[in-house]
């Protein structure tokens, strides 16, 4: 599988390869069949896999419910929710249906569905097209929450999620779709278990835990800091839940300093779970207060300069890490 792909192409390749290898995989969503996806993630797939990549009406709630039923009957549906913000219209089916059916049925039912949905600010679509809502789902028993940051992860994590018998909310980065590229490479899946975090940069000064497109921002910040001798260890969480405590603990025990960076709103965001876990489990390993860096308590505005003022970026991360390292 040679050659560079964009992040969006990696998603498409993963869908294609799962469609090819498992006849029970179907893909459902708006504008995915005739158009090929507003972010091209399904382009060409409807032609290659006839009748298995299907446009739905504007009905997110019924679409997810339909996928749940299809999963009960033996398919492995992948649903695309066009922008993560719209997932609010399907919350009931995801949370009261998909997430709970196994438990409510005493194990009789499994719901192997994947809900793919792009998040991120950065496209000038305004407050209802830019939210990071993964924390909601991480809070819900029964769901797995994936958030890939690279081309190989977009590909391999999506394949893994489609093969997962648990319902997975798969949060893609629309910021990275056409910016991030790379080779898929061989499956670099965790040596220990499928939900491993990955240390993407080694360092001894501060552990920076992040995911999605904030990984690249954090890495860029780390490079600048290295000039001044501050060496960040950057951990790409990959899965918001389950999150890989072993990898985190090992890193934090080495650096004794923890910074969490995400694009979701900081208040009650997933960083607070990581922070709380570390604060109670690694209390004696910490030399400084844990810091969170995330989007402040506001919707994402339309104007580009206002948006940039809210969402974390390499410069802000750099200065926050510098403060923490000096602490």
């Amino acid at each position, binding site marked *: 599988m040679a050659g560079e792909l964009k992040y969006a192409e990696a998603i498409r390749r993963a869908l294609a390869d799962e469609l090819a290898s498992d006849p029970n995989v179907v893909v459902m969503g708006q504008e995915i069949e005739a158009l090929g996806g507003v972010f091209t993630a399904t382009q060409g797939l409807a032609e290659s896999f006839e009748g298995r990549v299907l446009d739905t009406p504007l009905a997110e709630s019924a679409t997810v419910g339909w996928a749940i039923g*299809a999963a009960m009957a033996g398919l492995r549906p992948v649903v695309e929710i066009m922008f993560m913000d719209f997932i609010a219209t399907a919350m*009931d089916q995801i949370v009261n249906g998909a997430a709970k059916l196994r438990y*409510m049925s005493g194990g009789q*039912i499994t719901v192997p569905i994947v809900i793919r949905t792009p998040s991120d600010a950065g496209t000038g679509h305004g407050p209802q097209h830019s939210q990071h809502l993964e924390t909601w789902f991480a809070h819900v028993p029964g769901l797995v929450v994936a958030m890939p940051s690279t081309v190989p992860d977009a590909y391999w994590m999506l394949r893994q999620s489609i093969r997962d018998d648990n319902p997975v909310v798969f949060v893609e980065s629309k910021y990275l779709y056409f910016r991030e590229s790379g080779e898929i490479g061989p499956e670099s899946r965790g040596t220990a278990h499928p939900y491993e975090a990955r240390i993407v940069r080694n360092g001894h000064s501060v552990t920076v835990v992040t995911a999605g497109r904030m990984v690249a921002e954090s890495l860029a910040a780390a490079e600048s800091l290295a000039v001044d001798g501050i060496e960040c260890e950057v951990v790409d969480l990959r899965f918001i839940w*389950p999150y890989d405590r072993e990898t985190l603990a090992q890193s934090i025990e080495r650096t004794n300093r923890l910074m969490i960076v995400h694009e979701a709103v900081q208040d009650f965001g997933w960083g607070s779970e990581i922070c709380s876990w570390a604060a109670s489990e690694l209390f004696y390993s910490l030399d400084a207060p844990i810091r969170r860096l995330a989007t402040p308590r506001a919707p994402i505005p339309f104007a580009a300069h206002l948006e940039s003022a809210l969402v974390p970026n390499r410069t802000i991360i750099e200065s926050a890490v510098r403060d923490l390292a000096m602490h």
Partner: protein
Amino acid sequence: MTTPEETPSSRSRPSALDLYETMVRIRELETRIESLHYSGKMHGSFHSSMGQEGAAAGVIGCLRSTDLVTSTHRGHGHAVAKGMSPTTIVAELLGLQAGSSGGKGGSMHLHDIGCGFLGENAIVAGGVPWAAGAAWASRRLGKDLVAVSFVGDGGAAQGVFAETLRMARTWGTPLLVACENNHLAHSMPVERTFGEPGSIAAWAAGFGIRAEYVAGDDVFGVHRIAAEMIDEVRITGRAAFLEVEVWRVRAHSLNDPDYRYLPRDLGKSHLQTHDPIANAERSPELSDAEIAAARERVTQEIADAIEAAFEGQAAAESLATSGVYTEAFEREAQLRGW
């Protein structure tokens, strides 16, 4: 159904007695469950379908055992008609390990995949897209089956319900929606939301699917039209809608002080005029001897079932946190402290 007679290309053909017996089985089971609640032996919510048995027996009576059903919060009758064991149901309502969900689901969460009962749902109308999707998927997987989704008149107001019918029109799916119009969504009269009986079907027809109305106090009538429609759904693979008018005898649930919004004796009077069981007994289809025998059989069966259920053990407390994810996943989670 006791032993549904099935041929590959046709529906099961229950006898009049089969239909009758199913209704009696539902009535007997729910009546006994009610008593268990009153005597403090059961806890939690309970929504009786007393008076509505004609819909459950009539519609489900034309399904094959491989066909699928989704249900509502008021679904014991649907479960029983689809072949779910009363013992398993009662055990579930008692919160026992042998219950269909090991005590995790309770009265509004009966599921029995083995007999095609995909389950109840305590979210009104939430199960409708499940049935649509399951039927659609089964068809793709080469199975000749249909699904029936029960919903109430109240549920027909929910957004997901309209969305599902729209999607059923767009995609096609061998689904029959059986809408039990019992005149009330809890305390809201259907006249305020839809209008006279039949108006839900009239509205559903606007989705471009076949939609019919039938009176649910005549199980044979329900069965006739349902059988015809289900045959058609099976052959065409297209969705259809059947409004079954039924009469709610009990309060909305055991907790419901229905005298606040209904005349005190309305339920009783419904039993006088619209009881599908009494009506069946008055019909020429059944002899007195058959009726008596069936009643005796069922009474004994349910008594035995309840006795058997009471022999079960409570689920271990440690199970409360398990069964959320797949087993392999949970082993890993335990190991790694997730």
